[in-house]
């Protein structure tokens, strides 16, 4: 409860600092001979005062929030009775966890001993003392900040530049978040994947032909080791993506060509928003549609003509995924086709080519790099798509090229392995991260190639 109160007080102090600083600046200016003697406008002096009040105090507070648990826990452990302290490390960790739960009023897993009750009380007490000390410190630092800057305000002080430096550093920090996200993804996935590869060799994972990650609980049971050969999973991913591309590329490309070369304004005004709706439908809706409508109807048609279609066939998932990607392909191709200079079209028409000949022999060759880049991006999307396959594709890893059978994909496996209970020391859970690593690297390569191709292409006509 004390945290928001403290933050509010800090905010109030900063606002007070702002007004104080501004007033002082005005006063200083007056005694120096007018507003124009001041380097910056009075508001800037106020802002700097406010910043001096809140920034150092806030960092101090943040430090406390980060280290609070660790400090308090180590103090509690140090004060535990010696009988408990001599326990092996794992037991001790469990007991500390229980103490913490006891203190915060959560459910405690083990039985509660009087020592633990004492320790929990001690924990709370230490926490209170720590919070008190920090609160006082934070407020002192905030006031000291105001005082420090208040006394330094002179007409020569370059307050505006100081404010701008702070804002600019803030902007830089914000723009580096993208880097941190990438680094975070790489590190987190890589770390768990390496732990996985300690259990299962990389070559077994990448080239093994059998995938059955369900591990038995007891050692002596059959299949207790699990099988982590990911080739069937990769093959299933590629099969579904291929089906999706077979739907999306022709339909998307032809729609884009029709819209940019044939359709008049009215049709474009109607069709483009419709395609945008198709693009805006959440993937979970497509997944529901695939499982509810498409898969049963494909099965029904299959049984009519005497084919045995699995109820979770790759065809259904791929088809619906293709529908999902149509607007993606069409908008990307629309962009690149429109970027082809009009002079190329005019040249083709002037030698007597029909529209379709212009498209086939002039526009598409000219726009090919852009179209290929767009298709690669679409492939990367198909590979990474999750909800459609989770809801409409199967779980069993079949190594097959038959689109009527059930296959599984990388994303499906990640979801099934990670939803529910996770044990971060079993290869079953860690396998998800290894698959995630493959997925990330695969899509990253596709994206890099696609983005370079598209950029090169754009530069050619700009």
């Amino acid at each position, binding site marked *: 409860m004390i945290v928001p109160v403290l933050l509010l007080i800090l905010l109030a102090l900063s606002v007070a600092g702002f007004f104080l600083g501004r007033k002082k600046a005005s006063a200083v200016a007056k005694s120096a001979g007018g507003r124009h003697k001041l380097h910056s406008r009075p508001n800037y002096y106020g802002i700097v005062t406010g910043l001096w009040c809140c920034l150092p105090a806030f960092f101090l507070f943040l430090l406390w929030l980060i280290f609070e648990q660790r400090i308090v826990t180590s103090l509690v452990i140090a004060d535990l009775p010696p009988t408990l302290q001599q326990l092996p490390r794992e037991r001790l960790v469990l007991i500390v966890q229980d103490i913490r739960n006891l203190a915060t009023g959560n459910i405690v897993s083990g039985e509660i001993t009087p020592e633990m009750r004492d320790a929990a009380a001690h924990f709370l007490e230490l926490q209170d003392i720590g919070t008190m000390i920090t609160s006082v410190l934070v407020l002192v630092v905030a006031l000291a900040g105001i005082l420090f800057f208040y006394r330094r305000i002179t007409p020569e002080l370059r307050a505006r530049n100081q404010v701008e430096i702070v804002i600019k550093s803030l*902007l830089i920090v914000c723009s580096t978040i993208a*880097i941190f996200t990438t680094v975070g993804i790489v590190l987190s996935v890589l770390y768990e994947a390496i732990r996985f590869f300690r259990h299962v060799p990389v070559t077994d994972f990448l080239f093994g032909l059998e995938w059955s990650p369900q591990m038995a609980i007891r050692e002596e049971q059959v299949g207790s080791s699990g099988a982590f050969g990911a080739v069937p999973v990769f093959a299933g991913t590629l099969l579904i993506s291929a089906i999706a591309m077979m739907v999306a590329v022709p339909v998307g490309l032809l729609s884009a*060509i029709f819209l940019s070369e044939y359709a008049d304004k009215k049709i474009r005004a109607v069709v483009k928003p419709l395609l945008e709706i198709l693009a805006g439908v959440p*993937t979970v809706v497509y997944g529901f*549609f695939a499982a*509810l409508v498409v898969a049963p109807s494909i099965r029904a048609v299959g049984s009519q003509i005497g084919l045995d279609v699995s109820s979770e066939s790759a065809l259904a998932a791929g088809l619906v995924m293709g529908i999902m990607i149509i607007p993606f392909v069409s908008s990307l191709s629309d962009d690149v086709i429109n970027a082809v200079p009009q002079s190329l079209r005019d040249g083709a028409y002037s030698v007597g080519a029909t529209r379709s000949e212009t498209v086939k022999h002039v526009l598409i060759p000219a726009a090919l790099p852009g179209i290929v880049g767009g298709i690669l991006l679409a492939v990367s999307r198909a590979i990474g798509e999750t*909800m459609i396959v989770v809801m409409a594709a199967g779980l069993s890893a079949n190594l097959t090229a038959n689109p009527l059978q059930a296959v599984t994909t990388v994303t499906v496996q990640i*979801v099934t392995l*990670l939803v529910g209970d996770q044990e*971060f020391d079993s290869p079953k859970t860690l396998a998800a991260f290894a698959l995630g690593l493959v997925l990330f690297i695969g899509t990253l390569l596709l994206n890099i190639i696609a983005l370079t191709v598209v950029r090169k292409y754009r530069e050619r006509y700009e």
Partner: protein
Amino acid sequence: MSSQKEQRPVAGNRGYIRQKKERTIDIVSRRLAQRYRKEKRFKLYGLFSIILSTVFLAVLLTSIVSNGYSAFFQTYIKLDVTLESTMLDRENLGKSDFQGIIKQSITKLYPEVADRKSKRELYALFSSGAAFQLRETVMKNPGLVGKTIPYWVPADDDVDMLMKGHSKRGVPENERRLDDRQLGWIDKLVDQNRIEKKFNVTFFTAGDSREPELAGIWGAVKGSFFTLLVTLALSFPIGIAAAVYLEEFAPKNLATDFIEVNINNLAAVPSIVFGLLGLAVFLNFFGMPRSTSLVGGLVLMLMTLPTIIIASRAALKAVPPSIREAALGVGSSKMQMVSNHVLPLALPGMLTGTIIGMAQALGETAPLLMIGMVAFIVDIPGGFTDPAAVMPVQIYLWADSPERAFLERTSAAIMVLLAFLIMMNAVAVIMRRRFEKRW
């Protein structure tokens, strides 16, 4: 073409010239009809693919609407509930046996049903949540104690499905969810005008439930709201700040190039990978609570950030340089130029990009599965650190349920979600139209 070649004399150049020359115009005219046919065919292919996409969209929407519209109504059964003061403790109303009262009023309707097994079958026609609802009504209005009131209780989902015609009476008894005796009881209710379809308020006010007739989307809507609030509060300022720096201040060097490559790549990274990041970093490393809007919002923030940055940069690029030059010319600093002149002009474009990013985040499911937002959560979340579901995840969970009644509820939830999305996109389009300036 090939047949022409064969006719050509082999005598070489001289013989070729001597033969009566076919004029180019003849070749062209001969092929003209064929070329026009090709042209027509190509145009038809284009038209066909457009029609195909629209048909897909139409089938998708109609299948969802036709499955889901009936979920907005729910079958209710009227009972004459006698709130006997002997069964209700005025001091301690909350703990009284409302289940017993409901059962009593049911038995009053069917005095002929006596043995235990039949009674259980009879009670199964009524929602198990009836007692809770009665309890709430009486708690709100303690004056009812001692009176007999007509009270509408929700019917069990099997009855609901029967009344809506989703499950048929014609099928053999052992394949039906309701046996012949239960159908007879329902017919009696119909005869007495005690059964009626009413607007399904529960669907919009309740949280998740194992019983379809008691399940609602309000919990998921609130979860989505909290999650998106976290996402918006973080990604909007951070995205704009990053875009402003990269577009207005950043020097052209290796570091900024690297940032740019990173942003473009992140925009195309599969969303589930962000879920892995959230699981490993936010949950395992920082120890944040699972299944909460806070963590969900953080993950979605990382995911939508590239979209917002890219859109904001485009909006900044669209502001003409003359404005910047004018501001610098009258002596403002670069920061003043950006904050007083460029940013206000680019803001509508940035907001549009943000709304589109938020719409994306609202429909996202996969990364949230990774951070444990798939739990079965009955309580309606009241804050950022409460366990919560979001709408797409709720749809996913219901889609997995075997009951027929959840099918229509899933479709109805999809309709609500799509309505939100269309609304957001419409706002974005309107804003673009109203505020976009072309210089």
